[in-house]
């Protein structure tokens, strides 16, 4: 694997390989000495054009536990306003001799552009409103464990239904999850008011529904998306109250879930808006498992990019 830019870069076998390796990596996390020597002497730069404590630290820990040298560079703010082009920033960092660049950018496509300018491996850690492939991988990791543990002791997504609920238009998590879950054979249903569904969604490999209550009893996984503050003032829906009543995972809706179904949320949560405290902390909530999976999955991806064969 040269780069990981999109969840669509991965076929089912590659996904399975990454998730299986992540399972092995997660065993390391239980040991008192967590470091593996796999990437000793390799340099990974986390180049973050947008703040994200959670994703950055997860990549940082993943790199360090594989013994890579990890450097964090914050390039926050628009490159236009700083007067340095994206290309110059990326070339400057690459010129220091890095093996992999983990890029988070507030603008869609930036990691694609970077991958054309440099020789180092590029890993997309979230680009604008486009994709966030490692989030989709860690979600799949978490969901797969859940299926194996509590449903049918299988690693299979075929026949399973995943509802993704909320602001699909502006969600990179949703785009990557749609692609990845579709590759794995799950049925994805997008649930949102029409104002938060992206143009062209009819051609996506998903079902679309505006009515959460119609979908809820059918879903094996209910994935709630964060409502960004700027959407609340952007006229996408009338009031937070109306949003919660229509699309929040409220306490009454918890009771309407399919038996054995589980809850995901990529975080950070707006408790009381898209997800109630009862749902966030419910026994069938996988939200903390998702966070824990982040490090294992990112170790696995870094290893796939930088490990063997070179």
């Amino acid at each position: 694997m040269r780069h990981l830019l999109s969840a669509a870069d991965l076929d089912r076998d590659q996904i399975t390989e990454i998730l299986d390796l992540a399972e092995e990596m997660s065993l390391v996390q239980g040991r008192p000495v967590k470091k593996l020597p796999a990437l000793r002497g390799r340099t990974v730069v986390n180049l973050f054009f947008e703040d994200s404590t959670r994703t950055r630290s997860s990549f940082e820990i993943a790199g360090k536990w594989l013994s890579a040298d990890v450097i964090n560079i914050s390039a926050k703010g628009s490159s236009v306003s700083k007067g340095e082009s994206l290309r110059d920033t990326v070339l400057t960092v690459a010129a220091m001799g890095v093996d992999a660049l983990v890029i988070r950018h507030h603008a869609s496509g930036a990691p694609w552009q970077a991958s054309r300018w440099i020789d180092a491996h590029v890993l997309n850690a979230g680009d604008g409103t486009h994709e966030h492939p490692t989030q989709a991988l860690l979600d799949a990791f978490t969901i797969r464990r859940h299926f194996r543990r509590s449903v049918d002791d299988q690693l299979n997504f075929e026949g399973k239904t995943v509802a993704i609920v909320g602001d699909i238009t502006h969600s990179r998590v949703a785009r990557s999850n749609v692609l990845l879950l579709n590759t794995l054979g799950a049925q994805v249903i997008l649930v949102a008011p029409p104002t938060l569904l992206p143009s062209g969604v009819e051609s996506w490999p998903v079902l679309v529904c505006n009515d959460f209550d119609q979908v809820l009893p059918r879903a094996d996984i209910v994935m709630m998306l964060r409502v960004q503050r700027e959407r609340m003032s952007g006229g996408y829906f009338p009031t937070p109250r109306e949003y919660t009543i229509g699309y929040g995972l409220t306490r009454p809706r918890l009771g309407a879930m399919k038996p054995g179904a589980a809850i995901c949320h990529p975080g950070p949560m707006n408790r009381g808006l898209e997800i109630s405290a009862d749902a966030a902390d419910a026994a069938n909530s996988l939200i903390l498992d998702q966070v824990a999976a982040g490090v294992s999955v990112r170790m696995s991806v870094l290893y796939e990019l930088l490990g063997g064969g070179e």
Partner: protein
Amino acid sequence: MRDLLIRGADLLGRGPSDLLIRDGRFLDPGDANGAVDQFDADGLVALPGLVDLHTHLREPGREDAETVESGTMAAARGGFTAVLAMANTDPVTDTAEAAVHVASLGARTGHAEVVPVGAVSKGLAGAELAELGLMARSSAGVRVFSDDGHCVADARLMRRALEYVRAFDGVIAQHAQDPQLAGPGACCHEGDISGKLGLPGWPAAAEAGVVARDVQIAELTRSRLHICHVSCAETVDVIRWAKQRGINVTAEVAPHHLMLTTSEVAGYDPTYKVNPPLRPDEHVEAVREALADGTIDAVATDHAPHARHDKEHAFAEAAFGMLGLETALAVVLETMINSARMSWSELAKRMSIMPAHIARLADQGCALVAGEPANLVLIDPGARAVVDGAASASLSRNNPWHGRELPDPVVATIWAGRITYQKQL
């Protein structure tokens, strides 16, 4: 200067003929006397020199991206003998003094006639009218006014501008973009591709809606309205309706909207970022059809040079625009002539006669007959080449045609009797 005799050129596709040029004008070829320079135009098509209603020359302000000198050299290479220089320079062309300055820069270079476009509003801010009358009365003789780059979004300001310029036969050239439906961040045609790529959408309705409003205002004020860079089928429908109703509206299309589609954006290459954005096939087909049937009156390049570092940002943050002067004729040839949608005389109308008429340029877009100014382009209809962006006369390299095989038609350009470009064979 000796007389120039052009031998055997096919005049607008109507058959071969000789053209004699003396003192910047055509003469009857029989009047040749003494020694003449001869130009063998056997097999070449002659058209009146092309006129571009929509050029960004970047001077004053961004001489690193383009100058009047380099931009008009690119114009001559593209077969143009006149360009209208858009007002969004720094300072903005919103006073008579600024307009006269741009015209004088043009007069100094000598590659093509440079005609300034005046801003509609002071500083392109969309709030108060610029000094339209003073620009019109100045030696620059401004007749075309545009806030291009910005839409005149305020309906009342648009009404006043249209009314006011009627006094001196001016025209308002509207950059139609509803700022509420397509804000400054909008950078990809709203549809399947914008949704997949996660780029802010620029819906066709944001263009057609403003045009629908403006043709109504043009009817109300009995004024001349021109629509810049028509990019979508919905706008074509509105203009067709307005013309049937007798409203005084004209329209232009940019070469890139005649050939390139939204799918170019899929790789996030900012070379393909342009405003209005590239549209899907059905819109490309609609603007081609409208250009063929005359609903769209003119091809205008929207030549928009940018320094490399202004294009090498993330897609959403990179500058809008692409080069066009040197390749415009090639693209129109490929999409309209080689597909038999248009004749040579229709092409002459769309790229010379109509743009000259819209801008009220007396010495451009004239017939190739004795007594008229000697502006023409000689075309080899069969020549083809792979476009080399590095070989451009423009100072910029944001060339979406780089690496593509296209016609390579321009053999020579003659402005006011002087050869401003001649292809090296």
